[in-house]
């Protein structure tokens, strides 16, 4: 493991620097610094992410959005040379604590990637894989139920129920992305991280995924990285703007778009850079 535990695991919950503390804070990040070798990708990022809503990360390419996202499910651990300092708590528990197994953590913090990446297996197997390795189903019918429910929640059931045993890679891009979402929710995560989930999709598929995100927000804490400000505006309740590894500002989405406090945010949303 290249990432370290937070410097002070027992630190009392500091009042957050810029973000208002909601009643249901799901993810609490404090002074997050991430390094790739000698290069620092994130600088003292501190934020609270509320539960059961969509939070959008925006910012120019290379500003560290993905890096921060991957810190939340410790996917950065799998990257050689990646070093983490700071503190991230989920449900008020430090996820970089020694007692936390990143593999278990990732089951409750699902992730959806930019390019749909279904396993080259059947649709059924794609969804069933997570529950199987986590032993969530004891019988075949329980598994069938999980697969059906997950596909249902991902809005894909109607389209694939007759071809569950055909390869998932045979679906269209949008369907694949929803399959990947179904796969993620099959293990009953609490948080779903989405890294530009629509950037490889056409507009119609994008709309469907956005609708799905809206639906899922009722039950999950969703964090979405997006390049499209329109998308952020459409789906998210809160938006965080990153720039050069810094969290510039974070707030309700309308506020960020209509009345940004920082001039860099202003420049970005008016298209002056990025």
């Amino acid at each position, binding site marked *: 493991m290249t990432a370290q535990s937070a410097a002070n695991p027992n630190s009392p919950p500091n009042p957050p620097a810029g973000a208002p503390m909601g009643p249901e804070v799901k993810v609490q990040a404090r002074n997050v610094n991430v390094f790739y070798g000698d290069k620092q990708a994130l600088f003292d990022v501190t934020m609270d992410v509320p539960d059961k809503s969509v939070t959008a990360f925006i910012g120019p390419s290379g500003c560290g959005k993905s890096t921060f996202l991957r810190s939340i499910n410790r996917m950065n651990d799998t990257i050689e040379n990646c070093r983490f300092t700071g503190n991230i708590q989920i449900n008020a528990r430090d996820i970089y604590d020694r007692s936390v197994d990143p593999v278990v953590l990732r089951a409750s913090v699902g992730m959806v990637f930019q390019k749909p990446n279904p*396993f080259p297996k059947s649709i059924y197997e794609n969804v069933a894989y997570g529950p199987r390795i986590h032993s969530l189903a004891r019988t075949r019918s329980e598994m069938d139920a999980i697969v059906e429910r997950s596909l249902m929640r991902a809005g894909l059931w109607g389209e694939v129920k007759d071809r569950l045993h055909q390869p998932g890679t045979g679906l269209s891009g949008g369907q694949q992305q929803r399959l990947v979402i179904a796969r993620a929710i099959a*293990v009953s995560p609490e948080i779903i991280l989405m890294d530009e989930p629509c950037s490889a999709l056409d507009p119609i598929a994008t709309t469907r995924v956005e609708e799905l995100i809206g639906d899922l927000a009722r039950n999950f804490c969703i964090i979405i990285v997006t390049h499209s400000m329109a998308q952020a505006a459409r789906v998210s309740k809160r938006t965080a703007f990153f720039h050069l590894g810094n969290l510039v500002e974070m707030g309700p989405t309308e506020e960020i778009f209509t009345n940004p406090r920082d001039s860099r945010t202003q420049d970005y949303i008016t298209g002056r850079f990025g």
Partner: protein
Amino acid sequence: MTEPARPSAEMTGGVPSREANGARIRRRRREEARFQLYGRLAVLTALAALAVLVVSIALTARTAFWQNRVTLDVTLAESAVDPSGKRDPEEIRFSGDVIGPTYEALGRVLAAGGTSPLPQRFAPDVEALVTDLATTPLLKQVVADPGLIGKTIRIRVPINDDIDLYLKGAGFKAQRMRGDAAATLILTAPDTGGAAVRIPPAPPEAAESGEPGEEPGEEPGLAAGVAPEPSAITGGTVPDVAGEAEGRAIILFEGDALRNFMGQLRAEIAREIAIREQETGRLDQLVTAGTGGGTGVGTEAERLGIAARIELLRQESALLQAGIDPAASAGSNTLALGDDRPSLMIGLRGGVVKAERVSETRIEGIIVKPFTDAPALDAAVETGEYWLLTIALPQNQRKLSDATIVYAGALRDQGIIKAGFNTGFFTRADSREPELAGILAGLIGSFFTILVCMVAAAPLAIGAAIYLEEFAPKNRVTDFIEVNINNLAAVPAIVYGLLGAAVFLDFLGRRVGIPNLAPGLPLVAGLVLALRTLPTIIIASRAALKSVPPSIREAALGIGASKMQAVFHHVLPLAAPGVLTGAIIGMAGALGESAPLILIGMQAFVSQAPTGIDSGATVLPVLIYSWSDHPERAFAPLTSATIIVLLVFLVLMNGLAAFVRRRFERRW
């Protein structure tokens, strides 16, 4: 690609001058055409080289896949097989003689009918047809079932490699043609002690002249059957009697039926004169150079000997040049045909006469195969009723005697020697006799060796590849390991042989005393080849693992799979075709390896197919190497045939690799 258009005065409306553009396009097309031409030439050259290789090997190998075999009814006389009469298998195994009865059976069929056996003088020529090793299976059969003694059993054995090659038309050429002039056959009295006593021939009878019917053929052949022959001795196995009687005959020809042979004879004498004169020249130089005393005397003697020989040759040559007077038949102006002269055989009346003295229209010779239809007195022979077999290569320059050639041809004409598919090539182990040699020991040895190699190398290599690619931290140590794995793949195979000899044979086998690590065992060979293929498989497997997109790993890790699970559930199955391909290619490489195995004693002569990974074996490439080194000509086609078998296996393995790649390749 767009041609950059440079603004110029010739440009009109932004379009470059058509002329300039045209020239440029033409030049570009020419360059492209030339490049493609080079490419095609290169591909053609490679294909042509491959074709030449395959065709030349196939041509050499062709004759190895079929074989001439003789079918005989052998009477297993007790006096030969079990003289003591005790029916003791051990005794029969060590002293039982089955080749004697086999030769007897051969003599019998050659004398067809058995009333008059072949001349004793030609017993060795009969025996040259079959080697005694060929009857080993018969002896085993008798040992297993002594009840066979006294019975007649039918056996089918390969004939000796030299005569087999001759019958297949490989090697020196013999020419058989129908006689095109009438002739008279005169049987002479049996001579004694080699001193020819001749009965003067009767004047040749004028025979009707017929159309010269030439029927060139490459092989000798005789009609079956034999009749009581006045001058033949009795019995091929009768003890030698001094001054034993031999049938002799004189044949007088009406026309120049012998012209072909006389031509060959002149050419041979001229050739020898040229060679001898060269020798004399060389010796003259030595003498004038004044080499030391002893040598000088020796040289002088040698020179004199050669001078005498040249003198004789000159006389003979002059004789031939002048033409031999047929009237002075028995006299001095016939030419003796020694072993160093081309051979002439005349077949008529079911028998064969080998010429020992010859003139333009007359031969005098020994009856090699008795006539079936022997005349009491001089007999006229019609044109076309006899054939002439000429062999330009003198008998002392070939392994096969004239008589053996005559007998083999006769047996083939009788259908007793028949060509068939050479099954023994696949079912027999190595042998000193090419006709009995097979590749079974190599085939099975290769199989066991590759088996050991695969079992030892594949899991290790694939495991190493997975660890290095998926789990190992990327640091100096793993970089060092990676570089050295690549280096190992480039180490010459023979070095692994030395390593294997030192580690497996010398250290583990001899010092530590592990009993199954001895030279020449597939176990050791497989381990050495495992070392050899390890880096190859590691490199191929790593490449296959690398080619699995990282998104698959992320996907698995993202839903909470452990690293192990991600690798073994998702990455490895996707990499499997590549890993398998690498393993198969590695095994194919191991299959073709010879140098390291020679060093660990796989070149031993293996006359029995190995029964396991710990029984002495050889492998196909080493067998090829050993056989290619044999002086017997008959091993050359066998070598090529083995190469073909090896190539077939290699092509099959590579085909399997391609199939695996195609069939299981997934797209993502």
